[in-house]
């Protein structure tokens, strides 16, 4: 008998809200978190992209100065989201040896790394501070969350580019099902709104250039989409063995019914145009959760707003759900908050859990002329989801051909 795993705590800090209630309200309203960057480095380095979606709440408004000093900005966001999720779970006592962490990042401590490089060049090796290594290492966020919670059943960092946050939940589910932990703090964090990653993503033509109108730049499924908008932030979810949650009378948001991870083995960045890897991921997550196509009422799509990326996801959804795909309410929440890279899967999982729990699908903004090759039923104003037993899926795909899917079932 497989252990059932439920979700009992949610946390987030994002470009459309610094906590879960604010983010959720905005996600139903439909707002844009993308704005023109006022930083002097935009002009200094003549960046081709002048905007991004920054977190609404600066980390220093939440963390103490001394605490923040020892964390890369990505870790700061991760710890903020993890603390919110932990408080939300209501867990007051737990055996630390039964609490695991799976906290992902796509890029890791890029600010710390590049600041230290600048310091080395300008001031020499003596001024490169001793905290540099623990702050730049990709496992820095999982380690900080583990320290913060006293979690001792292992602290893991799945790294699979933009699928990382979703893969963290896949790992968390495994850890609990296999009996290695009773509770897992899962999530993803990213803080890469720095001139170098902006230049690098621009150079591969991945970012929107709609500099004169940032709020309308992220437009998944729209004919005029021209790339994604860089976002930042973190999402966190407390996964818990059902019997553990029931024993303490926890509030249960939903069941993490199934997860999957597959690889395209097709191209280092381009998605397989047939969406075969994504199709296998969708089918595997549904098989894992004993889910029939007809059970699925909502999908939080990966949908980054790139010309080449949005369509293969449709192809995959159609292959996995068949004609039932027409009946599924699809939300592309990156339209609102941009692409949080390694954090996106975690934040979108939070939204998907809330969609199932609150029976409301969040809004896709900026859809004016829907691409006729992607005839999905896209949610453009908050829409109620049906009563009864329902399932929602959240997809994430990453450079490297990583595909990850989570399936949330109502309880």
């Amino acid at each position, binding site marked *: 008998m497989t252990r059932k795993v439920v979700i009992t705590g949610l946390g987030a800090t994002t470009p459309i809200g610094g906590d879960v209630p604010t983010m959720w309200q905005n996600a139903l309203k439909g707002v844009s978190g993308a704005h023109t960057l006022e930083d002097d480095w935009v002009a200094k380095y003549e960046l081709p992209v002048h905007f991004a979606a920054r977190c609404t709440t600066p980390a220093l408004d939440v963390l*103490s*100065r*001394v605490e923040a*000093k020892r964390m890369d900005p990505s870790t700061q966001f991760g710890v903020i989201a993890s603390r919110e999720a932990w408080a939300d779970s209501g867990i007051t006592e737990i055996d630390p040896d039964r609490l695991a962490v799976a906290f992902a990042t796509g890029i890791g401590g890029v600010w710390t790394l590049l600041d230290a490089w600048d310091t080395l060049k300008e001031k020499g090796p*003596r*001024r490169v*501070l*001793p*905290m540099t290594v*623990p702050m730049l290492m990709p496992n820095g966020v999982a380690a900080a969350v583990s320290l913060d919670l006293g979690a001792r059943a292992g602290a893991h960092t799945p790294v699979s580019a933009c699928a990382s946050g979703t893969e963290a939940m896949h790992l968390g589910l495994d850890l609990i099902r296999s009996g290695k932990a009773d509770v897992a703090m899962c999530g993803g964090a990213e803080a890469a709104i720095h001139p170098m990653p902006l230049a690098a993503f621009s150079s591969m033509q991945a970012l929107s250039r709609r500099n004169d109108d940032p709020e309308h730049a992220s437009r998944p499924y729209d004919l005029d989409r021209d790339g994604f908008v860089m976002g930042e932030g973190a999402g966190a979810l407390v996964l818990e063995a059902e019997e553990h949650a029931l024993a303490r009378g926890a509030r249960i948001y939903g069941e993490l019914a199934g997860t999957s991870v597959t690889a395209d083995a097709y191209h280092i960045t381009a998605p397989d145009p047939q969406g075969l890897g994504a199709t296998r991921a969708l089918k595997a997550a549904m098989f894992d959760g004993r889910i029939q196509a007809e059970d699925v009422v909502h999908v939080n799509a990966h949908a980054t707003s790139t010309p080449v990326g949005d369509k293969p996801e449709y192809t995959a959804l159609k292959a996995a759900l068949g004609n039932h795909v027409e009946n599924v309410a699809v939300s592309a929440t990156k339209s609102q908050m941009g692409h949080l890279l390694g954090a996106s899967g975690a934040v979108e999982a939070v939204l998907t859990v809330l969609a199932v729990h609150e029976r409301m699908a969040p809004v896709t903004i900026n859809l004016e002329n829907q691409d006729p090759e992607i005839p999905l039923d896209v949610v453009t104003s908050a829409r109620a989801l049906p009563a009864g037993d329902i399932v929602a899926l959240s997809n994430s795909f990453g450079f490297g051909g990583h595909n990850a899917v989570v399936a949330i079932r109502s309880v």
Partner: protein
Amino acid sequence: MASNEEILAGLAEIVNEETGLAPEAVELDKSFTEDLDIDSISMMTIVVNAEEKFGVRIPDEEVKNLKTVGDAVDFISGAQA
């Protein structure tokens, strides 16, 4: 050339920046590890910041001899001379 009082005040500021400890807690007879609970990574950060502030060089092998705040003030004062 900073006086010992000025060095102490400057060190207290650096310690406060790194650890959040109140500057007035940073007294000459306080041990960095025992009394101020400063770990080795923070100690190295404080050393590097003190080098920049006071224009001195504190060799790595000297750092383990700086047990108290007073030791650090004396070393910096001597190094400036």
